[in-house]
């Protein structure tokens, strides 16, 4: 398995305004952007020249402070700056609509992957039942349809390199499709404001070559050989625990994991509880049961997102953080 997780930079490659282009939609969006951009530049320069010339030519004179003309109408002139812009924006409208329709209709043979958004991570469900958090792995040159829903508030799935974005709603499915034509790791952002962890709610789309993808499928349960605490360390990032919990004692949205094992934890309501295996397990599966003082009850449940071995692995990892 390819272990290099370098994400394509959004600032390098690409054009002056746009990040590197991947997939079928970039052509339409980018060319449309530059069409409007250069059109605007031409009009803007025109405006500037006219205004500049008027400022120079018609500066108020000391001897005569009156305007030299009082033109109030010129039908030809008015038509000439009403009709062409109207035609231009209609072109832009049709151009944009065509691109939008292309995005709206996924090919029939597209592979379906379920996307579940929760505060604040992305969970991807593959057809074979595998689930992964924070990493969407897809083969190159294969149309993929994402069927998305949210467990809590509205999120939005955005891959700048692919030029795709769609809101992810609770109680409803929204669809999004793409077909990556370049191997690489691409940044996913949440673009609908969803609270404290909004900016940390990112993920990666890993586009693999056909062979690598096969290998990845075969290798999907590779976590089995790792010792528990090492697997836990891996899951800490992979399952997006890192969004809210630090391992160095600093406070994020949730309590830091450093030194919490076997420590006395003050709980909302006045009691304390010992941070043993059972407490940690309960806090992963049913986070609202005992909330530590100073934090809010906002963590989603990981029941179903982690199997028993993975929960044990996380607890084993927490034990090492003393």
């Amino acid at each position, binding site marked *: 398995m390819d272990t290099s997780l370098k994400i394509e930079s*959004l600032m390098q490659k690409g054009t002056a*305004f746009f990040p590197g282009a991947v997939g079928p939609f970039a052509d339409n*969006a980018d060319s*449309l952007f530059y069409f*409007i*951009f250069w059109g*605007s530049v031409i009009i*803007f320069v025109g*405006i*500037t020249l006219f*205004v500049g010339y*008027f*400022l120079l030519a*018609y*500066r108020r004179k000391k001897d005569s*402070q*009156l*305007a030299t*003309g*009082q*033109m*109030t*109408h010129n039908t030809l002139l008015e038509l000439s*700056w*009403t009709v062409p*812009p109207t035609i231009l*924006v*209609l072109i*832009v*409208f049709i*151009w*944009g*609509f*065509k691109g*939008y*329709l292309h*995005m709206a209709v996924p090919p029939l043979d597209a592979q379906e992957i379920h996307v579940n958004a929760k505060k604040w991570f992305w969970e991807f469900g593959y057809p074979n039942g595998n689930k992964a958090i924070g990493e969407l792995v897809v083969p190159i040159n294969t149309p993929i349809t994402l069927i998305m829903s949210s467990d*809590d*508030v*509205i999120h*939005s799935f*955005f891959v700048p390199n692919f*030029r*795709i*974005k*769609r*809101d992810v*709603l*609770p109680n*409803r499915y*929204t669809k999004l499709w793409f077909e990556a034509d370049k191997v690489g790791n691409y*940044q996913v952002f*949440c*673009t609908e*404001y*969803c*609270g*404290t962890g*909004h*900016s940390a709610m990112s993920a990666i789309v890993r586009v693999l070559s056909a062979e690598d993808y096969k290998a990845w499928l075969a290798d999907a349960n590779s976590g089995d050989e790792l010792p528990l605490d090492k697997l836990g360390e891996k899951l800490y990032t992979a399952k997006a625990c890192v969004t809210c919990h630090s391992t160095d004692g600093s406070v994020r949205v949730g309590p830091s994991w450093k030194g919490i094992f076997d420590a006395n934890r003050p709980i909302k309501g006045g009691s304390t509880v010992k941070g043993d295996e059972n407490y940690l397990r309960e806090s992963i599966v049913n986070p609202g049961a005992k909330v530590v003082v100073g934090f809010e009850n906002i963590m989603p449940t990981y029941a179903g997102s982690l199997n028993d071995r993975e929960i044990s692995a996380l607890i084993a990892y927490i034990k090492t953080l003393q």
Partner: protein
Amino acid sequence: MSQVPLNYLNATKGLKSWLFTLDHKRIGIMYLMFIAISFGLGGFFALALRLELLNPKELLFTAKQYNQLFTLHGAVMVFLFIVPSIPASLGNFLLPLQLGAKDVAFPRLNLASLYIYVFGGLFCVYSMFSGAVDTGWTFYTPYSIDTSTSVISMTLGAFILGFSSILTGVNFIVTIHKMRAPGMTWFRMPLMVWSLYATAIIQVLATPVLAITLLLLILERTMGIGIFNPALGGDPVLFQHFFWFYSHPAVYIMILPAMGVISELVTAFCRKNIFGYKLVAFSSLAIAIISFFVWGHHLFVSGQSDYAAMIFSLLTYLVAIPSAVKVFNWIATMYRGSIQIKAPFLYFLAFLFLFSIGGFTGIMLGALSLDVHLHDTYFVVAHFHYVMMGGTVMAFIGGLHYWWPKMFGRMYSEFWAFIAWAFVMVGFNMVFFTQFILGAKGMPRRYYSYLDQFQPLHAFSTFGSWVMAVGFILMAFYLMDSLLNGKKAPDNPWGALTLEWQTQSPPLTENFIETPVVTRGPYDFGQEKRS
């Protein structure tokens, strides 16, 4: 000091004479004061959040505090500053003067609107100290139902401010219909009045929908009625539809008065009749009407139907045309004029260029496929700041400088006005042009922490915010100085023809000694043979 003639400022004395005044000019001045304070407050939040963004990770604030900062910045700037900015302050001061009337139609209602505004503002301020709201100024459900911060006080504040806006709108419409001086026909009205008229129509028609939406959100939080809550069978996207049914026309509540100011500035400083008076006047009304049918362009990626998206995109372009036509008309007005570059005219130029950039980028955002990429990124942030700040705020400041001598009877320093303008212009473009690039590159808005690769652009944007702040602080100083030490202003320092310049500076409480009789249009410089 020379003897100051009797005017609306010194006619009566004492705090009470201001608190219970029915004079539209005093009410306008009080609005101006509160609006200036709100702008300062919103600007302070803006500086604070730009400062935090200097660093890709934590710098000064926690994520939650940052979210509260951008929410407060947005809510204060939108509801307390920019919606009332031009209509309530300049509009109140000017409307009766420009019509040749003694006051607005309902002076008591006018004072009540001011107090409702202050009352609503107090709720917003209260919200800042009671667990400041962190939903973004758009209050999207279901997040705004779930969050533990003080949503109710802020939405209640906006709800109350809405009524202030509605009542001002009612007052202005009636004033324009019924209070015009003899001879002031509809087509002899200054374009400022036309734009206030169009604005008032939107205020009356759109604001109640926002009011009911915010009320439903409050009920959602207090009683869980479930209309916007997916957990109870409701629909969160319905909230977005309702919200933008108000808030998109509200964008025109913000920009239309600015367009009115700009028409006054360009004619006065070019000594030129406006090019295409009727076109400019009617395009205000056209914009007001079409603006009610474009709200869906905020929801292109929310899962609304593709046909709805298509229609909203098309209508968005239709509303763009009248705005573009206006820009060309203003430029044509300069042709063969007698152009005097004074502070207000500098802001006219600022408006012209910045608003055009806002318009061009609006064309990009209205294109469906392109919007999918740009939606909810910094590109949108930059776009609406170019329109709202580059457009409305520049016009507001230009108008303030234009009517300042009339309002206070004092001149200000042209030199310092130029310096401040230069700082604001440079700073503004540093802050926001940068954000076009950031957004197109994929930087989402409302992000507390961001990828390291975005840092240089973010830092440049933050530096720009400091440059701009210097400009505004300078402005506050020289305007204050003008009040205390400014040269006495003549009645008509710019040689303009609209009625407010035909009375003394500052005007009498009754505005005119005798009700003026209007015999010509507002910009008939051709017939005016004086220098």
